[in-house]
């Protein structure tokens, strides 16, 4: 699925929640362009607007101002709306609340069924999706008997069965234990690498962001950082100021830099930090 146009484009998009007397601007004039095959981590504090932005990207919300284009199509048109939702899949925070089927395979079939796919093709898609995610053995299990990590893998498979170009994970790892999280991230990395599926991972966990090739930081509904993990995280001052964390080793290097022993902070992994520190110690 090669495309010349960007996969997703937003132009000055804003979203205002109208509930109660206080309208709240959750997303404030964001302009963003996402290409096919990117692996993006989106960070921000609770209530920063990142989940709202995600929901604008797959037309679950319609912008109050500005526009969101997916492959140049806008959600204003009813038919294009379904096209967008099919292409931009989403998995959510609470793995329990997104499984509709009473068995794994039924849940995965739910999407294709909605799209009106033929019976035999649905079966093939279910098998393929389960295989891609590595949970073929769970096919006939009941969802409540699965671990959190397995449930989220079901979520991914359910999206895959709709043949998406992009998968958005809306804090999907936040309720998982480290093992479940690691396995889920492995699955999406694989999908990104092998099938060139765009991944947008919305998260609080800085370690997860280091896996991405682009990090976007959102604060008060605006993008305040957008770049490679290395570029973004080494701006320690800005990130800690808005209440986010940087990886431990980055913080260590930052302290060393403040004390005058390093000229710049440019490490986010243990190995990189090790090299820098060894240099100081020589």
């Amino acid at each position, binding site marked *: 699925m090669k495309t010349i146009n960007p996969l997703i484009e937003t132009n000055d998009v804003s979203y205002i929640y109208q509930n109660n007397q206080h309208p709240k601007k959750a997303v404030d004039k964001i302009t963003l362009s996402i290409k096919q095959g990117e692996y993006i981590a989106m960070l921000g504090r609770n209530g920063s607007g990142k989940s709202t932005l995600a929901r604008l990207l797959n037309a679950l919300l319609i912008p109050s101002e500005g526009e969101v284009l997916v492959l140049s199509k806008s959600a204003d048109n009813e038919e294009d709306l379904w096209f967008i939702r099919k292409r931009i899949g989403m998995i959510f925070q609470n793995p329990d609340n997104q499984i509709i089927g009473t068995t794994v395979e039924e849940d995965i079939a739910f999407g294709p069924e909605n799209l009106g796919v033929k019976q035999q093709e649905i079966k093939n898609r279910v098998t393929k999706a389960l295989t891609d995610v590595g949970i073929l053995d769970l096919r006939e299990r009941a969802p409540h008997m699965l671990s959190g990590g397995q449930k989220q893998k079901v979520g991914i498979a359910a999206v895959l069965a709709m043949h998406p170009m992009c998968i958005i994970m809306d804090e999907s790892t936040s309720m998982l234990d*480290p093992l479940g999280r690691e396995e889920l991230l492995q699955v999406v990395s694989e999908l990104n690498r092998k099938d060139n599926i765009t991944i947008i991972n919305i998260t609080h966990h800085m370690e997860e962001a280091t896996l991405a090739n682009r990090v976007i930081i959102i604060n008060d509904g605006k993008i305040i950082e957008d770049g490679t993990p290395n570029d973004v995280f080494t701006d320690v001052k800005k990130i800690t100021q808005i209440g986010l964390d940087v990886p*431990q080793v980055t913080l260590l290097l930052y302290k060393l830099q403040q004390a005058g022993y390093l000229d710049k902070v440019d490490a986010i992994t243990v190995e990189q930090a090790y090299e820098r520190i060894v240099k100081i*110690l020589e």
Partner: protein
Amino acid sequence: MNNIITLSNVSYTYNRGTPLEKKALNQTSLSIDKGEFVAIIGHTGSGKSTLIQHMNGLLKPEEGSIVIDGQDTQGKGLKELRKKVGIVFQYPEHQLFEESVYKDIEFGLLKHNIPEEERKKRILETASILELSDELLEKSPYELSGGQKRRAAIAGILVLQPEILVLDEPVAGLDPAGCKELFNIVLQLHKTKKITVILVSHSMEIVADYANRIIVMENGQIVMDGLVNEIFSREDELRSINLSVPQIAKLMQLLNKKDSTINSQIFTVDKAYEEILKKVKKIHD
């Protein structure tokens, strides 16, 4: 030091006699002293939740015994016990139900027949510790933000003035700043009120920052038990049961391999910084 929690050979099995039978605790023995800050780590299904539910008698051991501050949990006086041991479960905000935050915090006090004046005093005191303003106390718990809800729910436990505070993944879903805020409050309570804290957490960074003892569980048994530096220096063993050590621990161990005079038993950023600074200064001299 005096002992406040003692488990002797405790076993517990879920769904006994069904195809779903699972031995959650297997001959577990453990003793915790007053004033300790203990972290329990291990992945889902290792028996951590079952263990903590035994501490206030929500679950009773099938074999063995548990004595909390001299009281056996099999015996009478469960209510007293639950006042002494406050358990904050995962996502405690799911327990909020009253029409105002104030009333919700009051719930436990009413159940323990605390007189009104005392109730008011305690609620206001607890609210100020947890940084819940008077205005918030009057609001419906469902109007609060995620972090506020979490703190309101924790207040509902703290207001009972427990001697032992058990926290099950207290910061799940909170962002880093909210996480720090909460732990600073807990640490404050631990220090000033000498509360014994038992923390169940998946985050090795948090464990390294706050706990002084770590208990590692696997398959319903305690497989490691020791001071933080002792446990984190056994990285290979932790790795073999799919647990990790903080990033800093890995870094310091790498540095120690290169230069054995560097202390490898360091797990927090601040300590690592001091250690490296010491080394650098030595070189420069």
